[in-house]
Every structure is written in C-alpha cells, then in structure tokens.
C-alpha cells in the first residue's frame, strides 16, 4: 500500500469511524488520555474464552488518534487476546503504513496502549 493510499485509508477511518460506540456487557473497559495534547480514547471489549469477540471505541482527538483507534478495533476483533496484546508499537505503525513524526506517533499509538493496558489489567467492568 502506498503512503498516499494509506493516508487516505486513515482519513477515511477518521471521517467514518468503524466500531464507534459502546459494548453491552463489556468485560474490559479503559479510557486513555495523552497528557501532552488531550487526545482521548475509550475502549470497551467483550472477551470470552480468550477471544476478543467484540470491541468498540469512543474518543476525541486528532485524525491520527481517532482513525488509529478505528483501525485497531477492525484489526483485533475476533483475535485471541494474547495475540492482540503482543502487537508491538512498531508492528502497528507499519500496519498503518504512514510515516508520522515522533509526536504524531504518540497519537497513533494511544489506542494500542490503551488496549494493552486494559488486557494486562485483566477483566474489569469499570469503563471509566
């Protein structure tokens, strides 16, 4: 995928986010926040038998942070939680396919970090 195309995909996710909203009876929920810029993502997942069978997000922030959250939900839905937790920053940035400066990389990784944190914290119904 060319960089231009990747960027278009990103912008498309920003304009039309996938899986935006709330998961009924979610087992994992987290709100993450970048103190430097204020970008926020809230993620809810339903995991059973170690599989992420449902994941949705809500949030507010720049195009990169929100598009990336949308792409993340697409990526890990149906995946074993352990596999999702093992996605590295680098893997994920490669997947997004656009070269971002270090500051924007933080935006792109916000949702991934949130998901990882939530997975490693174990199940919790506290979505706040």
């Amino acid at each position, binding site marked *: 995928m060319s960089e231009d195309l990747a960027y278009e995909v990103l912008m498309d996710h920003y*304009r039309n*986010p996938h899986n*935006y*909203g*709330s998961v009924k009876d979610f087992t994992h929920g987290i*709100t993450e926040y970048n103190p*430097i*810029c*204020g*970008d*926020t993502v*809230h993620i809810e997942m339903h995991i059973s038998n170690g599989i992420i069978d449902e994941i949705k997000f*809500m*949030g*507010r*922030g*720049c*195009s*990169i*942070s929100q598009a990336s959250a949308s792409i993340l939900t697409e990526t890990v839905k149906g995946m074993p939680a352990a596999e999702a937790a093992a996605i590295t920053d680098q893997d994920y940035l490669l997947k997004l396919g656009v070269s971002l*400066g270090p500051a*924007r990389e933080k*935006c792109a990784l916000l949702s991934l970090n949130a998901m990882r944190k939530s997975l490693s914290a174990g199940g919790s119904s506290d*979505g*706040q």
Partner: protein
Amino acid sequence: MLDPIRIRNDFPIFRRMIDGKEIIYLDNAATTQKPYQVVEAIKDYYENFNSNVHRGIYRLSEESTDMYERARKNISEFIGSRDPRSLVFVRNTTEALNLVASSLGKSLASGDEILLTEMEHHSNIVPWQFLKDKGVKVQFARINENGTLSIEDFKSKINQKTKIVSVTHVSNVLGTINDVKELGKIAHENGSLYVVDGAQSVPHMPIDVTDIDCDFFAFSGHKMLGPMGIGGLYGKIDLLENMPPYMGGGDMISSVTKEGATWNSVPHKFEAGTPNVADAVGLSAAVDYLRKIGMDEIRKHEMDLILYALQEEHYIEGLRSFGPKSIHIRAGVYSFNIGDIPAFNLEKEMEQSGVKISRDAIHPHDVASLINGEGISIRSGHHCAMPLMDKLNVQATARASFYLYNTREEVDKFFIGLNDAIMRFRQ
C-alpha cells in the same frame, strides 16, 4: 521603527532550511529563538571566566562573581526594580511560582484562600493547589465572553480570608493583558499579598514592577531571547527577608551545625547550590539586546502583527479565534480553532451514541501538523491551561504567537498555509 528583517540576521536559526523551506517560527509563547549575542555571551563566559562564584578568592572566581552580580543588577533594572537584591535567580517561571507558593504557604492556615483567575497557566495553579493539604482554598476569578477578566467576579471572590492573589499579566492562550496595577490595588486594599506571573509580559512590553507595585513577579529567560535554565523571581526586599527559604544547601546558609542552620542574606537565601552563572550572563545579554531594540518598539510591532492577524482571519472559513479584539489589551498571541471540537465526555457520548462533530471541524493537532508541512511552526494543545480549555469548552486550540523577528509577510504565509491545510484536509 523596528526592522524585523535586520533583526532576523542576528538569529542564526533562521538560516536553517527545513525540507527546503525557510523556518516561520510562530511559537514564541512557548520559547523564543536566541540572537548570536546571547549564545556568544555564554560561550565567552565558559571559555574565559568559568568558575564557581561567591566562595573563591582567586581571579576567575572573583570575575565570575562579578559577572553574575552584574547580570542580576542589569536584569533587575530591566524590570524596574530599584534594588538588585530583590531579584532571585531561578530556573524558570515555574520554579519562581513554586518558590513563592511554598515559602508563603508555610504561614497559611486552614480556611485561608488564594485567588487566581480562570486564565492561569498550570504553573500558577498547581503550586497553589499543593497547599490544599493544609486546608487552603483556591479560588478562580471568572473571565468574560471576550476573554478579559471579570473584575466584578474578581472583587466578589476577594475577602478577608484571601491571603494571596496571583494573576497572570498576559494570558498565554488569549493574549489578554490584565490591568495588573489595578488588580494589585484591589489585592493590597484587601490586605492580600500580590503575585504577578510575568512569563508572557516581560518579553513583550516595558515592565516596571515598582510601578505595578506587585509583591512578587515571575519570569523566564527562555521566553525573552535568553537561554533555557534561567529565570527570575522579583520580590519586595522586606518580604523576601522575612520568608523561610525554599531549597537548602550551599550558599543559602549563614551557618550550619548538626543541630540546624541560619540563613544567608537576600537574595542568596533563595539560591541554594551552585548557581547557573553562564545562563544568567546569557540572559543579561538578552536584556541588553531587547533594551537596544526598545521594549516600546517591540510592543508596537507586535500590536501591528496581532492587528493584522485579526483582520486577515476573516478570510478563513470556519475559523474561530479567542481573546479580546482590542489590540490595546491584547498581546501577540493568537489562538484559534477550525470548527468546534468540544472536549470528550464519556457520559454525554454514551447518550448521543455517535460522533456529533461537524465534518468541517479540524482538530488543532491536524492543523498544526498540516501547517508544519509548509515550514510553519505553531503549537496546538491545551497550552498548560486546562481549566481555561474547559471554560472555552474546547479540547485544545491551535496557537500562533509572535515576536520581534516576525513579519506581516509571515502572518500572510501563515494564513495562506492555513487555508491550504484546510483544503488538503477536506479534499
């Protein structure tokens, strides 16, 4: 008239090209660029005089001490102090305000109040909130719709329990210039101590702390062409003399025994450890530079730039800018957004279940990022003023802020770049 083109020649960084483009630096409220005179002063200090001050009786140390104390005198005069002892060297505004809050805080008691405003920088909020542990209350005077301080609200929140009033001279988001002399009168009539955060004023306009009659005044060197790592806290001598010290260590003591210590005289009492002589000397060179250009001239130049920006902004569709429109109470700080993007609130979001943001809105980070592609440096974010963001009901803003080396041409390029960015984003 100040000639920004000639001034730019003194700033080596403007010779740098980024991706083939000249640097248009519009983040001066965050930090400013340095003329070669400042960097040379630091270099000269290290290469010819470097040594520790105050304690040595060999030549280098005597010279170093002399340079340090002359820097103190020069900088204290620049802000209108009549006595160099009133200037304590600190790292930056943040340290200055922490010093004041911590030292004055020691004599506060439960129920005492501190009055701030809604437009304060975190540096002038968090150090006071630390005192909440003691039962001290922190109040915030409201701002008006137009970005000015509500004097009525300020007056209504000051009372006998208000021991300290601390106010920013110029807002780093709105550009609002507060009438700090008038606010000081109200504070003093009320018997409150009066602190002014001058981080955004000293660099941009003539300052006379004696005329303002503030008790304390804080500022940062790096925002006024000086080096990072140095700043000042002005305090009235009699107050400084009666305050407990902040940090303990070398130079700030008169004597130390195993049982306890007594303090050195002002300002040394507040300068623990080896001071940052090189950067004090650098800041003194910055002050010389600013004085030569003339603070009145700098203020006029920035009035012209903000006036121009407030005219040109009308050509940008969907742009909303913040802060007062009258350039007489407005510094060269220009915060804006393209469309409204309110802060995230989970509960509200759940109710509405869906994104309710206008398709035309562009998040300030996207604005800053796109415009960076044109070689233009602006900032986006909460600008360390989150309570103000809450008040404005935005998550963040984009901000361009001007200084003596900026030009109308750059303001033009900024708006052209902004327009292009919007086009590209919406395409």
